[in-house]
């Protein structure tokens, strides 16, 4: 222990300087539950551009993942749009 330091009073007031200098990304919660039946929730994302282009001339691939089964569908794409 250190002696001689005056007892600091805790304040709940937001300090602008602290926020400016110290703010960070909030933690992400662990996923709590899975979907109870197929197609209740589907995740999708596009990956790319990938170089070199594939033999079919594609640069991206698009995935759909079903939360219930974990099954994934994939489509290769030439263009993102």
């Amino acid at each position, binding site marked *: 222990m250190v002696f001689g330091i005056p007892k600091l009073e805790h304040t709940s007031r937001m300090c602008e300087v602290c926020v400016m200098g110290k703010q960070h990304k909030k933690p992400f919660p662990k996923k709590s539950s899975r979907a109870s039946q197929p197609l209740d929730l589907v*995740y999708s994302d596009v990956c790319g551009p990938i170089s070199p282009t594939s033999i079919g001339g*594609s640069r991206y691939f*698009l995935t759909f993942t*079903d939360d219930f089964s974990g099954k994934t569908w994939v489509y290769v794409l030439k263009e993102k749009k």
Partner: protein
Amino acid sequence: MLGKFKEFKNLVEKQSECKLKCLRTDRGGEYVSHDFDDYCKENGIVHQLTMPQTPQQNGVSERKNRTIMNMVRYMLKEKNCPKEFWGDAVVCAVYLLNRFTTKRLQKITPKEAWSIKKPRVDHLRIFGSVAYVKIQEERRTKLEDKSQKCILLGYGENSHGYKLYNLMTKKVIMSRDVKFDEEQEWNWNSEDQPQKLIVDEEQIQKDEGEIMLAPSASTNSPTSPSSSTTRKTKSIQEIYYVTERINLDDVNMFCLFSGNDPITFEEAYQEDRWKKAMKEEINSIIKNNTWELTTLPEGHNAIGVKWIFKTKRNAEGEIEKT
């Protein structure tokens, strides 16, 4: 992109007899267009968007992408396939992932969780393997080759068969009459005959070299030039530097030492021609003053020397020298 989403939605809804209720995506331009938004609204799909710069909220997708890309890199590398084949590798990787067990499910595969049926896996082959595909009778004359050489690129999604790249026509074909040589790899650079893995041959040579340099405890009795170093397992080789066992399962390695040449000094000493060869070798060493006899200085160890027995043949295969 929207076209593909419609295609996906129709397919999965029909197959599962469930309705697509919720779609989680990032805010990529392709997902936030008016058309996409309108389509979701029309079909009553809740479109959950992640916050900007927060891919963590679409973790399942992002992790899946990583898994797929890791597999793709590996699949292309394993058989030295050109990178242009990534598209087929991606589709093949997903096909495989749907048939593998996963942490999220208890003892079943995603495909089984989706369609109740247990998937078959006995048809799976190594991506990029050399495949011999039967040519249909009507496509060839009696004396023409019955098969053509192709490369395995994947599997039929809705049909029992393989997706293959025809090396001659450079086209992707489908077939179920295929024989595979999973050991073989196509040499994409020179595009001539496929070769057995080059890496392995180099590794074997390297292994042999290291064994030659390894000092053997006894000076004159020759030790076996063979070793049980299995291919691709460097760590075991490092641990067991020199061992006596020949791995008979490994045909390639075994062939290296099956040329009727004796391996040990005792074996060679039984045969007159080897005795003669050894005498000649000793005489030439004496004649050339290669070595002189000396006493070992204190605190030094002698380096081992061993006999290597090798039959040298001329171009016709006749024995020239032993």
